[in-house]
């Protein structure tokens, strides 16, 4: 059979010819012939008038997509999430056939927002991105919300957007609607970097560069717009194409003089406080923060952007942040994104106002790589906070030097003072934990179920496993009060952009990453959030990703409902109408039925506290066998 490498549009047209001229067997281009007319007049030559030249070949032995897969394998992607689309069909086919659908393995998502949010959650467990393929216009717009969350959360996301650059190679109307001269423009405000390679060698170089940029702190999303022709056309000379090795990235470390100054302030201080937010990229980050805090015997506030500090460590004073900050004479932030918010009490009244919590004269320091990558349009960087020393560097990477400098300065006198301070803090910490346990008993047997009861029951079922809380969509505080988070993977932080719809899919992405480590992934799932991307449950079942969704089902977008009450009472109008537009009732959603319809084991709705534990036991048995499950619990609102 004749083989001739042709372009994608030629291939399409050739296939059409073959369909007219042959029935089965090897496909060879044939001119279409109409039967002779009864009048004896020569039949019209359809092929000559409407079809492409007959000698166009039907098959090709290589493609740009194959080469792109070789690049993706070199980078080391384990997975590619995607919702299928024609503009990346060449790469799609190459992944599943040329690449053998292994490393990367293709994962199916029913919405691009799910594909990106899964990548977001995955990256925070695995500390590296997976790849996401989207269509360049409609697909990327679907993906944009999740991409914004990842940008705000400083998560590495690797986007590949299929595009059709050459107008003469677009055929159908939708292919014009699915093409753009600059696809990335709609999301560039929340990308670290993007490119639209003009050749395969360009793709190779930009793909490696994109990965390096995404993985250099501060992490962030990158995007390659990849032309359909480039994916599908044959490769003229594969041997001429090269793929560079992926560079090891050394994150930026703080200036040694500035770090030494920070260490001196910490050692001299009577009441130093450390605030950690998106600090711990790895377990080493948590371990080093413990070492620093124990050396200083100072309180740590874990703002929760990552799991930075063990919740049961006696120096963890996150639950009394206002009190410790009010006493502080030195505050050292580690990857604190919103320093102003951290040290101010804010009031959402008719006239909004803020009050600084820290004492006048308290020395404020921040160590964050975020300073190295400012953007202007979206305002997620928060209000400007004047501070004394801003160290533009990665927090985790700077900790070894800071610890070394602190240890060098601690003499016997300071050590004695630190030990006394540590004892006081330990005592306060234990009192705080006991207070929280007592608080949790209020309404223990109430229905709707209190969140304290729900979280206590859940922890009781998982505490013997190597568990990971991969989502907590509406900032339920009870896990951090009642559970012992002692590893970075116990908690992955929140959405970053507070974009609803993150939790359900990011949790699944984190669970995907946890799967190979045998960890038990659980998530506390809001009903409003689930309804943004319910199709995530199908992906969980389809790809056998073990995760337990425990619904915090308050049948409302409850934060908004509370805001409505505040607005109504501000006008003296009462709260009778606050539920309009802010509740998810009439009809109530049967989440268990929804989950079952997509192949997920489910129970609920559960309304009696005594029914939670048995339901969790049954659902967790399913999860421990490698499947997803959902337990719908009707809860009190907050």
């Amino acid at each position, binding site marked *: 059979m004749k083989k001739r490498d042709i372009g994608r549009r030629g291939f399409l047209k050739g296939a059409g010819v073959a369909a007219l001229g042959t029935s089965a067997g090897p496909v060879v281009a044939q001119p279409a012939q109409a039967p002779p007319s009864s009048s004896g007049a020569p039949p019209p030559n359809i092929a000559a008038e409407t079809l492409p030249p007959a000698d166009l070949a039907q098959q090709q032995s290589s493609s740009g997509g194959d080469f792109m897969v070789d690049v993706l394998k070199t980078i080391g992607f384990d997975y590619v999430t995607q919702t299928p689309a024609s503009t990346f069909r060449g790469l799609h086919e190459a992944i599943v056939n040329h690449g053998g659908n292994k490393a990367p393995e293709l994962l199916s998502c029913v919405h691009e927002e799910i594909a990106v949010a899964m990548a977001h959650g995955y990256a925070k467990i695995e500390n590296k991105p997976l790849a996401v393929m989207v269509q360049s216009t409609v697909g990327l717009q679907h993906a944009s919300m999740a991409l914004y969350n990842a940008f705000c959360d400083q998560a590495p996301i690797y986007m590949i957007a299929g595009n059709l650059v050459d107008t003469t190679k677009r055929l159908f109307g939708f292919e014009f609607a699915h093409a753009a001269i600059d696809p990335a423009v709609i999301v560039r405000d929340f990308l670290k970097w993007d490119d639209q390679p003009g050749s395969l060698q360009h793709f190779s170089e930009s793909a490696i560069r994109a990965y390096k940029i995404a993985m250099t702190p501060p992490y962030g999303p990158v995007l390659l717009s990849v032309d359909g022709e480039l994916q599908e056309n044959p490769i003229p000379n594969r041997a001429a194409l090269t793929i560079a090795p992926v560079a090891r990235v050394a994150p930026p470390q703080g200036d040694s003089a500035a770090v030494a100054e920070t260490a001196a302030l910490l050692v001299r201080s009577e009441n130093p406080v450390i605030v950690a937010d998106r600090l711990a990229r790895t377990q080493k980050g948590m371990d080093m923060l413990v070492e620093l805090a124990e050396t200083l015997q100072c309180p740590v506030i874990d703002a929760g952007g990552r799991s930075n500090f063990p919740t*049961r460590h006696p120096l963890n004073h996150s639950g009394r942040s206002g009190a410790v900050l009010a006493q502080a004479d030195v505050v050292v932030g580690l990857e604190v994104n919103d320093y102003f918010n951290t040290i101010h009490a*804010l*009031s*959402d*009244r008719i006239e909004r106002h803020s009050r600084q919590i820290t004492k006048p004269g308290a020395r404020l320091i921040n160590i964050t790589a975020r300073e190295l990558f400012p953007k202007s349009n979206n305002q997620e960087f928060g209000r400007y906070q004047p501070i004394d020393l801003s160290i533009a560097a990665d927090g985790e990477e700077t900790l070894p030097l800071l610890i070394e400098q602190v240890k060098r300065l601690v003499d016997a006198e300071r050590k004695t003072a630190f030990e006394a301070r540590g004892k006081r803090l330990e005592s306060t910490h234990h009192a705080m934990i*006991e207070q929280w*346990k*007592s*608080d*949790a*008993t*209020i*309404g*223990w047997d*109430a229905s*709707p179920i*209190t*969140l*304290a009861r729900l979280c*206590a*029951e859940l*922890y*009781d079922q998982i*505490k013997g496993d190597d568990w990971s809380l991969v989502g907590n969509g509406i*900032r339920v*505080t009870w896990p951090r009060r*009642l*559970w*012992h988070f002692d590893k970075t993977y116990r908690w992955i932080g929140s959405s970053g952009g507070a974009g609803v719809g993150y939790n359900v899919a990011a949790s699944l992405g984190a669970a995907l990453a946890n799967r190979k480590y045998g960890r038990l992934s659980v998530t506390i799932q809001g009903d409003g959030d689930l309804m943004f991307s319910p199709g995530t449950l199908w992906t969980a079942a389809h790809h056998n990703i073990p995760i337990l969704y425990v619904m915090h089902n308050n049948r409302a977008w*409850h*934060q908004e*409902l*509370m805001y409505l*009450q*505040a607005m*109504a*009472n*501000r006008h*003296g109008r*009462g*709260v009778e109408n*606050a539920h309009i537009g802010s509740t998810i009732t009439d009809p109530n959603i049967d989440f268990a039925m929804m989950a079952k319809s997509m192949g997920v084991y489910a129970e609920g709705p559960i309304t009696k506290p005594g029914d939670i534990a048995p339901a969790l036991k049954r659902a967790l048995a399913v999860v421990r066998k490698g499947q997803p499950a959902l337990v719908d619990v009707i809860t*009190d*609102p*907050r």
Partner: protein
Amino acid sequence: MKKTALALIVMTAPVLFLAPSWAQPKGDAANGRKVYLADGCYQCHGRVGQGGLMTGPAPILAQTKMPFAAFHRQLRNPINDMPPYPENLLSEKEVADIYAFLQSLPGRRPVKDIPILNNN
């Protein structure tokens, strides 16, 4: 010490001079429960006064130790982000009824009686 005393006077002055009557009225707890639910108090503070979270913590109200005068003032002219409940929305009687309801709630239990709270 002097500063503390001054601060106390400043803090309590509105209670002493602006309140209509600060003897704790006898409230109707059953009606208080109805009003507590109908007027949305539970949306932030929980149905059994267990507390919750809005933009900041919504305090525990079950068996609140807050004196009635302070409770009344917080409803009429709240500090922090709590919505105000003026008299056209909540009568004096209803304030007293809610207070009675909160005092009638079971509140805390001994932690030792709940094994799963003692496992870590």
